């Protein structure tokens, strides 16, 4: 908090608050747009492919989306701050190995069961804490801080891997991916629980609201005597915990601790969040928005395979959808003097 900065900062807030009509419209598109896109996709694929309509497919789609959903819940908190978190891949790698080594496995005699998972989640939290402290205390841009932490996570995972794959034998954890209630695996319910808690925290707790406000106007909070640092760190930590849980879930799916367990989740989750209307600039969207995004991404991935689009083209499609979704949301505001970076 250097006094010098405050003066300059304060000036910004007034222009950050344009008049009502414009925003209301932009807001509407922001919230409803993604849902509309989702509906359209479902209808299109539903018509195009009979398998897509099958109950079976719904199950496998939800199962596939479960892990991504949990990761995205986590990253949403960071995005709300206006920061970014690229550490999911690395953190999940380390956490995946941790789970597989702590619960009953083929490498060692440990069998901590539930506690193994708890420790995993906590470890994720520690990595998140590291992200937060580095970016807040050392003032390293979150982009680099989290990138570095991701590398650290992968390194830690590699050390734990030590050349021999720890296979998962713990019936409880491996059960997540196999035991089904009403057709859905336990993973789906785990994810659902995580989403509900995440939504509650983001919507109704000081942590969530403050994170939102920081994304809106950090300087104002400082002037109003709110110490933003701790909240930022907390948000990163929450994200870390989610990655931890997601890693445990992924491990259960893969049946072994893998360093690659988190591969691809970083960009997938960011994509999902953005598509859902949680903006990178911070202070917009939220857990529910992001979840719509997760569904869009999952439906897209699943549907494209079912209608037989080549896996390479699939990625391109996803990119296209992201651009269109965000472009559509920005359209009503395009004439205004809003700064878009």
């Amino acid at each position, binding site marked *: 908090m250097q006094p010098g900065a*405050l003066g*300059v900062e304060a000036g910004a807030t*007034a222009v950050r608050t344009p008049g009502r009509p414009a925003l209301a419209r932009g807001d509407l598109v922001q919230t409803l747009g993604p849902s509309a896109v989702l509906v359209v996709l479902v209808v299109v694929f539903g018509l195009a492919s009979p398998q897509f309509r099958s109950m079976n497919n719904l199950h496998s789609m939800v199962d596939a989306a479960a892990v991504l959903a949990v990761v995205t819940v986590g990253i949403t908190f960071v995005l709300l701050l206006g920061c970014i978190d690229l550490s999911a891949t690395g953190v999940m790698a380390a956490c995946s190995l941790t789970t597989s080594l702590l619960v009953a496995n083929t490498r060692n005699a440990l069998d901590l069961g539930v506690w193994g998972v708890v420790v995993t989640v906590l470890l994720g939290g520690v990595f998140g804490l590291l992200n937060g402290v580095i970016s807040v205390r050392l003032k390293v841009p979150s982009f680099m801080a989290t990138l570095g932490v991701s590398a650290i996570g992968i390194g830690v995972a590699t050390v734990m891997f030590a050349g021999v794959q720890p296979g998962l034998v713990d019936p409880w954890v491996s059960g997540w991916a196999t035991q089904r209630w009403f057709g859905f695996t336990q993973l789906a319910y785990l994810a659902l629980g995580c989403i509900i808690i995440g939504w509650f925290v983001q919507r109704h707790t000081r942590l969530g609201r403050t994170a*939102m406000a920081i994304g*809106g106007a950090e300087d104002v909070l400082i*002037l109003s*005597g709110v110490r933003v640092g701790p909240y930022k760190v907390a948000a990163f930590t929450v994200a870390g915990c989610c990655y931890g849980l997601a890693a445990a879930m992924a491990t259960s799916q893969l049946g072994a601790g893998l360093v690659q367990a988190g591969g691809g989740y970083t960009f997938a989750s960011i994509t999902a969040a953005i598509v859902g209307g949680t903006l990178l600039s911070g202070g917009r969207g939220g857990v529910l928005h992001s979840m719509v995004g997760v569904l869009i991404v999952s439906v897209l991935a699943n549907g494209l395979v079912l209608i037989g689009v080549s896996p390479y083209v699939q990625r391109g499609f996803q990119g296209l959808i992201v651009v269109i979704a965000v472009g559509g949301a920005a359209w009503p505001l395009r004439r205004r003097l809003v700064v878009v970076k």
Partner: protein
Amino acid sequence: MTDDSFPVLEVTDLRKAYPGVIALDGVSLSVRPHEVIGLAGENGAGKSTLLKALVGLVRPDAGTIAVRGRQVRIKGVADAAGHGIGMVFQEQSLVPNITAAENIVLGFEGAGVRRGIYRWKTLRQLAQVQLDKIGSRVDPMARTETLTFAERQMVEIAKVLAIEERTSTEPVILLDEPTSVLEPEEVETLFAQIQRLREHASVIFVSHRLEEVMRISDRVYVLRGGRVAGEVDPATADIAHLHELMIGTADSGNHYHDDLHSGAVAERTPRLVISGLTGEGFKDVSVSVGAGEIVGVAGVTGSGREALCRALFGAGIVTSGTVTVDGHRIDLSSPRAAVAAGIGYVPSERKVEGMVAALSVGRNVMLARTDLITHGPLIDRRREASLVDFWIERLHIRTPSRSTSIGQLSGGNQQKVVVARWLVGDDVKVLLLDHPTRGLDVGAKSEVYRLMRTLAATGVATVLLADSLDESIAMSDRVVVMYDGRVVADIPAPPGAKPAPVDIVREMV
């Protein structure tokens, strides 16, 4: 009240030096309970530093702060509030994307949050209490950015008033330029509230509008160069006296430089002609501004004058109508086109829209007109230097060098740099001035007025969105009044025959 003699807040010999600057040079003042203290002084006189020290945003080098006789070291805004000192900052300080209620209780949710979990009902009630004080019907649960500017002002005031609940003891409330962005009627509401507040609180009121300071305060401290230049009793002293204390010399009296007025403008050839202009925020506006004429546009916020002003510079949204400068039609699609047509714009949000704080004075001066200093694509640094130095000298911009970054200058000098940007070409035809004197002190204001007159004399057509009605009337040859996006009155205001403010206010509301 017997305890009145005993100060609730006592500042003794407060000192604060930044490298190269002495901001506070031994300031001492005291505030008694239920007292409204005015604080006057030019920019750089140390007012804001003093206030920031009182809320712990600045650590004083020396001196003491005593609250109710107990000497305290204030560690930060929250800590200050704990001691019953609360502050409202100059610019609007609301978080756009959370509810009005949250903004009002921001940082002090109290019963609104239990174990980190929000209790929206309680929160709403807490906020409603504050809004009721000012009889505002703003919905506490509305997201702040969806409110209109005026509504947000109300929320802002409510946020201030919330301070009184934040402390068991009677609070001291610091108001830093609370009126600078308020409209007349809002100012009245605020003053009414201050009067009510003083029943159980003390207030320090800072404003550049000296008449306001004199009106509301029991005592006025005048700061100059980090020292208390004098203490004034509004009952006995007058504004002229304040000026004297602030600037050190008697006020010329001719604040608005009528002497430089370029004479009758009636028969001047129209330079800027707006006909049937309709766009977002304004409808069917037709106004013409003659060469050398200064036209003030009056109107409450939401009257559409800001929108019109931005639209004229290609930064707004125009649906129909035309604008011509010297008969040539202007393309209003982008500021770039406007600049090419010889239109200059001085935005009200200097720090965000007017200047690039991190760049040097020189770069800021030449920003819009690099064409003047380039041969083909190449910059001629020597030409740039001479041109910049010429304008620094011409406008008396106080800066150590043209390579100093503009962010380090005082507000007045920053504003002069922004104006200079449009003058370097010697070919600006139309100047759009949006609150050109906002946040400037008397001296700086006077210089800006002088500049406006001089430019008018050279034939520049000026559109002025004045900071105050007085300013508008005094500076303009005509005052156009806008209401709800339309021009509702066009009142001539030639030198010597100025209309009375009331006539204009009547049209405004």
